[in-house]
């Protein structure tokens, strides 16, 4: 119980998430995250040795599509989500990677 999130952790998670947080927001976020971790800690009360980690609740696997084109030209819809557009593309600040 009682997890503590350090200033460094909040700073680092902020960088990873590309978020600029005010001091107040950092303090709030720290408290939220501590609460979440405390809640998850409940799981530590269970003995899970020998149990396969699972990523799904339902015993379902192999959900597939056949390889057939079912979508048409989606450009108009897609570009509705572009704050800025040019030449039928999303326009973003220059990014070279």
């Amino acid at each position, binding site marked *: 119980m009682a997890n503590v999130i350090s200033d460094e952790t909040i700073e*680092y998670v902020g*960088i*990873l*998430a*590309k978020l600029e947080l005010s001091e107040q927001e950092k303090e709030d976020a720290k408290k939220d995250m501590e609460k979440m971790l405390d809640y998850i800690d409940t799981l530590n009360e269970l003995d899970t040795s020998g149990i396969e980690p699972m*990523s*799904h609740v*339902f015993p*379902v*696997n*192999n*959900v*597939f*599509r*056949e*390889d*057939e*084109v*079912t*979508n048409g*030209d*989606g*450009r108009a*819809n*897609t*570009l509705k*989500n572009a704050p800025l557009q*040019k*030449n*039928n*593309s*999303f*326009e*973003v*600040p*220059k*990014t*070279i*990677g």
Partner: protein
Amino acid sequence: MAKQYETVIGLEVHVELATKTKIFCGCSTAFGGAPNTHTCPVCTGMPGSLPVLNKKVVEYATAVGLATNCKITQVCKFDRKNYFYPDNPQNYQISQLYLPIARDGYVEIEAGGHQKKIRIHEMHMEEDAGKLVHDEWDDTSLVDYNRSGVPLIEIVSEPDMRSADEVMAYLEKLRLIIQYLGASDCKLQEGSMRADVNLSIREVGAEEFGTRTEMKNLNSFKAIARAIDGERARQIELLEEGKEVIQETRRWDDNKEYSYAMRSKEDAQDYRYFPEPDLVPIVISDEWIAKIRTAQPEFQTEKMERYKKEFEIPEYDAGILTGSKKMADLFEATTAICGKPKKVSNWLMGETLRLMKEQGVEVDDLKFSPENLAKLVNLVDSGDINSSVAKEVFEKIFTKNIDPDKYVEEQGLKTVNDDGALKAVIEEIIAKNPKAVAEYKGGKEKAIGALVGQTMKAMQGKANPAKVNEMLKEMLKA
């Protein structure tokens, strides 16, 4: 004495699979569509959209895994790799980290006259990102999501390569295997096969690896070879100056023949992978694997052996003919029609390669049909056209895939087999060239060449030179 260095290279090869649709949605994967036309809420990462896995992707990936001697992970899963970049609209890439579809494989290569195994660490399925086009003048980038969600496999080798030659041989081998499987066209220029090179150097005899760098943006075999030489030299220079190699990602600029450290995205190596909750596990049963294994085609080495045995094609020629799936397909289809493997091989090995080189045509872009080449082989074989006319006709087949039967007919290129007509022309030539005739009769046999040439000219090439030669000899005896 100067220190001797050894280059240690491992490769991450991305291959776009030849599916008709994207990995998680029913959008087309066709190359070259107008920007953002092949997009939907799934491949542009809209909240609430649900990805559904394309079955063909699993089949192709399994087939490549089996063909490269990997163990197939019979229960495998997808994970999310989190990063922020405009080409990635979901802010995560769906990939496989914990349970990749295949592991622990190898391919055998031949480089510098020796055989070597290059081990494959693992192979996983993932989705491609969109494409960024940078505006030189505007300080903006344009994003096209047509490629977002195109299925990829990433093949990660062990650091088993020691030279650019070995890297080329490894890539060539992977390309042949994957092309023969039909799992991808593997075109480096169009980006359907891409390689990132991890390279470090160490003193010869050292056991520990040096610090490695990763090089991206390599889109041709030549660029890869140059980048390897360039990066090796850069690292040696650093060490010789007493400096250290920094582990970083570098971008190769093939025009400047130098690599640049990519702007470090702050802590970008921490991808916070976690299991993808929207996709259920994949179970690849023994039966499924057996089915995929049975469907595996004849690969290059087997094909080469068969060509040598079945068609009596020499080793070197068999190597070239099987060196790309396209060439092997052309050879087999044409041979199946005309039944003359050696002659088909001669056209492919001779004129086809010559014209490809002359016109800068890649093998995958060859346009002529096996039917038309087979017709040409038959035209020559039956003596309907002679070999120099045939070369002319072939050039037309090569560039425009014309029907040679029709073309020869229309252009009146058929060899004149009318002995009477030919005899008349030869008589005329003999009469006109007393000097050559006298030389020949005087024992200078080569002099007949000039007479054959003149006859062919008079016939506008439409005679069989061997026959002209024979008739001339006969007539000069008299």
